[in-house]
């Protein structure tokens, strides 16, 4: 799931924004899907659609607030980070879903979600395949479509993109919607793996996703980076976490390490970037006009 969230995060960050609400959105989408299926007795496809719609709605709201009300990306999604989590708690009453006192006879979690979350194909977990599909989709959008390249241009130089006739607001809106919907998919996978939905699931994953994007070489301020880098970032962070676990580092310490890694990586990135800027500046100075 961190991979899927990180893919959405990559698109947002490269377009010059940041989405702090991805993990909360995943929890909301997963919870809503679980409650609709188990408690309300909705058919499976409808429950899944509702979860996706929730991701869409959160993304659209983020996009709207950012482009129309001109709230900074960071602030808008920080608000949503709390609000979506609250809505997830409201939907589930703060209890794990399915809650057997409320569940419709025989309903637990949707079969598709359960299969994707737990089973493997040729030894590869289906979750990984879902993430791979999301990654390929996002990579295609990002490198081969107008919308994707426009997002890239906006992150690289917003004003230049604007005067070139790119509708900046519209593209940003779509970027946040895509991030919200990927978060919904990540939420489904969380539910599938745990065989249960829970309003607090995925806590802290927004930071992991940002860390993965930055470790993967993207510029935290937009305009540079790619999906492939992010996947490598996800793997590095995953290996690190497993390593800490194998070393027997206490879970609380793992949190400390996780937090510090983000700061350290961004600091390193800034330092590296300064070095690059200095080098490019000198190259520009010496280039013949």
């Amino acid at each position: 799931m961190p991979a899927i969230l990180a893919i959405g995060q990559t698109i947002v960050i490269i377009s010059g924004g940041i989405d702090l609400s991805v993990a909360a959105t995943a929890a909301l989408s997963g919870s809503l899907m679980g409650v609709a299926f188990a408690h309300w007795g909705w058919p499976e496809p409808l429950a899944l659609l509702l979860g996706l719609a929730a991701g869409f709605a959160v993304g659209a709201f983020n996009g709207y607030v950012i482009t129309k009300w001109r709230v900074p990306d960071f602030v808008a999604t920080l608000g949503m980070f709390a609000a979506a989590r609250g809505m997830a708690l409201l939907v589930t009453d703060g209890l794990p879903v399915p809650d057997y006192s409320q569940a419709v006879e025989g309903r637990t979690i949707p079969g598709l979600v359960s299969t994707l979350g737990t089973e493997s194909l040729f030894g590869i977990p289906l979750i990984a395949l879902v993430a791979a599909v999301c990654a390929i989709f996002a990579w295609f959008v990002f490198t081969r479509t107008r919308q994707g390249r426009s997002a890239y241009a906006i992150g690289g130089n917003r004003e230049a993109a604007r005067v070139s006739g790119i509708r900046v607001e519209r593209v940003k809106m779509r970027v946040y919607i895509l991030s919200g919907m990927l978060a919904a998919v990540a939420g489904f996978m969380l539910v599938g793996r745990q065989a249960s939905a829970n309003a607090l699931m995925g806590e802290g994953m927004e930071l992991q996703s940002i860390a993965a994007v930055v470790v993967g070489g993207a510029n935290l301020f937009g305009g540079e980076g790619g999906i492939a880098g992010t996947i490598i970032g996800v793997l590095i962070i995953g290996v690190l976490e497993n390593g800490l676990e194998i070393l027997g580092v206490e879970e609380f310490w793992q949190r400390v390490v996780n937090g510090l890694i983000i700061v350290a990586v961004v600091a390193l990135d800034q330092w590296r970037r300064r070095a690059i800027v200095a080098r490019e500046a000198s190259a520009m100075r010496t280039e013949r006009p």
Partner: protein
Amino acid sequence: MTLLDVRTVRKTYPGAVALGGVDFAVEPGEVHALLGENGAGKSTLMKVIAGSVTPDAGQIDVDGRRLPLGSPQVAREHGVAIVYQELSLVPSLSVGENVLLGRWPLTRTRTVGWDRLHEEAAQHLARVGLDVRTRTSVRTLRIADRQLVEIAKALCDHVRLLMLDEPTSALSEREAERLFGIIHELRAEGVGVVYVSHMLAEVLRVADRITVLRDGRTVDTVRAGDVLEADLAQMMVGRRISAQPDQRVAAADGDLALRTRGLACRPRLQPVDLELRKGEVVGVFGFVGAGRTRLARTLFGLEPDAAGTVEVSGKRVRITSPADAVAAGLGYLGDDRALGIVPAMSVAENITLASMGRLSRGPVLDVRKQRELASRYIDELAIRASSPDQPAGTLSGGNQQKVVLARWLCSGVRVLVLDDPMRGIDVGAKEEIMRLVRQLAADGIAILYLTSELKEAKALAHRVLVMAGGRIVRAATADASDDQIMAAAGGVHG
């Protein structure tokens, strides 16, 4: 005694020599200009003197005392100050706070001594002849005034050597005059001034001596009275630039390409009626603050509260965003190069940025077609890029401007709005861009050329409109006399 004595300074960057053993000296009370094309090493040399760049070798003496290399702190203590092109003021603070930034006087209780601060700041401002209240916020000042604040800030360090990097690039001619006056006063006080500029005429006026750099080496140091503009230009580029014959295309009598009625963005832009024919270059000349940029931005849908109507090729269009403007066949090249290119994207992508619709099937871009098309424009405009995939941010300023021009050619533009496109680019690139503008006009594009350089407007345009105070105050043919146009731009009606 020599104020500044720089000897055999070398600085190499990976793969490039920025300074290859440069000598440079400034006497007290001397204005010494540094001339050279982009990449000649002027900026590096200044930064080495200021201590912000550490050279590989060489020595720097100020008043006969050897400075440690690469120490901005020590350089400042010895009275070396530098005013960069991009100003470094805090817009939200007052003028007084900015002038004394970092050394605000304290009272006995360690709070800021406001009265003393404003009193001291006012003294420094008086020295540069700037008449603004020290409690005004810097945000409300015009660029020219901000620059004087910057100089005042530099002066309060008991400055011995003041280095100015392209100080007039953002100034109108009248504001530049004021700056020259101040430089002369500083010179009379015995301050040494290092003056970096592209503008030959200006350098000849203001400097006592001129050192020309090329490829990181000193070409020569000459007295300003001993040379002509053409000599300097030749020293800079190393080849003879032919005196420019008037290559202006014959007056256009094509169809109407652009027509505006009552185009306005009050209160800064009063209603403007423009008519541009196909193939016509219309110059709009005005000092900074006259409303030139406002006019360009309004026309291009960049101002939210625009009024009036616009017709392109006889068809009425509604422009409320740049996207509308692009769709209507307009193109825009701003004076701020950063506004033009996306540095991290390739040259090819930058060239096709406004044409992505044409290059896509559905939502999917045809990357091969994109590259082909871009290569064509790279050849056509002689853009110096190693490949279409080179990041545009690594090109030189002139080539970046060409990339933006290519972008508009590629999008099939019918009306091109150029807002001071020559600002801050060097002589060679300037010539090429002028040639391109003429070429575009000959190809039938209507060009609105906004500038604060009367020379440029007259060299390129069929007609010159003069702006002042947010309105067009005079329409002149290109052969109207300079002083008439200047008078109009300066607010003299008649």
